């Protein structure tokens, strides 16, 4: 039962254009959403996040949009740069146990930025 889904395994974008990565979720108890970026042979690094009470969060070239009614979020990267080529994971956070939050990850989308 995949509660967080990234339906595009890969995406190829021209340098300088906009990259849009999508993510859908099914559990309405998720209250916080995160995007992680992962280079080969490295661990995921936190990129940007959004609380469920907001619909947009922006940080430089990265913007995350949340549509709660559609249970959908997206990550926009503009302009795209070659260094953005990586695997991007969407994650949703929910209360787990002992007050800690659990992250549920999507399958990942491999973004390739072409020169």
């Amino acid at each position, binding site marked *: 039962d995949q509660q*967080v889904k*990234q339906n595009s*395994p890969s995406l190829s974008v021209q340098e300088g254009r906009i990259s849009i990565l999508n993510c859908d979720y099914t559990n309405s108890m998720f209250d*916080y959403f*995160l995007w*992680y970026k992962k280079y080969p*042979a*490295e*661990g*995921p*690094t*936190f990129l940007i*996040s959004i*609380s469920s009470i907001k619909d947009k969060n922006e940080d430089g070239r990265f913007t995350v949009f949340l549509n709660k009614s559609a249970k959908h979020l997206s990550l926009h990267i503009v302009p795209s740069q070659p260094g953005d080529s990586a695997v991007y*994971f969407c*994650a949703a*956070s929910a209360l*787990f*146990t*002992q*007050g*800690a*939050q*659990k*992250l549920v*990850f*999507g*399958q*990942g989308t491999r973004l390739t930025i072409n020169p």
Partner: protein
Amino acid sequence: DVKVTQSSRYLVKRTGEKVFLECVQDMDHENMFWYRQDPGLGLRLIYFSYDVKMKEKGDIPEGYSVSREKKERFSLILESASTNQTSMYLCASSLPPGQGLAKNIQYFGAGTRLSVL
């Protein structure tokens, strides 16, 4: 900067061996996690620890155990390695409850790629 260090980047083990994966964090985080990453499946939670000697099962704990004797160190143990445990293993840590929205962010190590032959 948070640093999460996994002791081995690559490991090759034989079926039936006992395997220890070690993880150390230097930010005094209460919470530590072990995940495995497989193609097409994303990251799946194996075990979680919220304090020394305290642990909770994640989504796929079968075939694994964990140990947390010190706050900064969290070990994943494969009691008898099998070929279906060949995977990338990732350790993470996070702040405890009461830290506002920052408690949602987990910080990852570089991963250990384990091959079981």
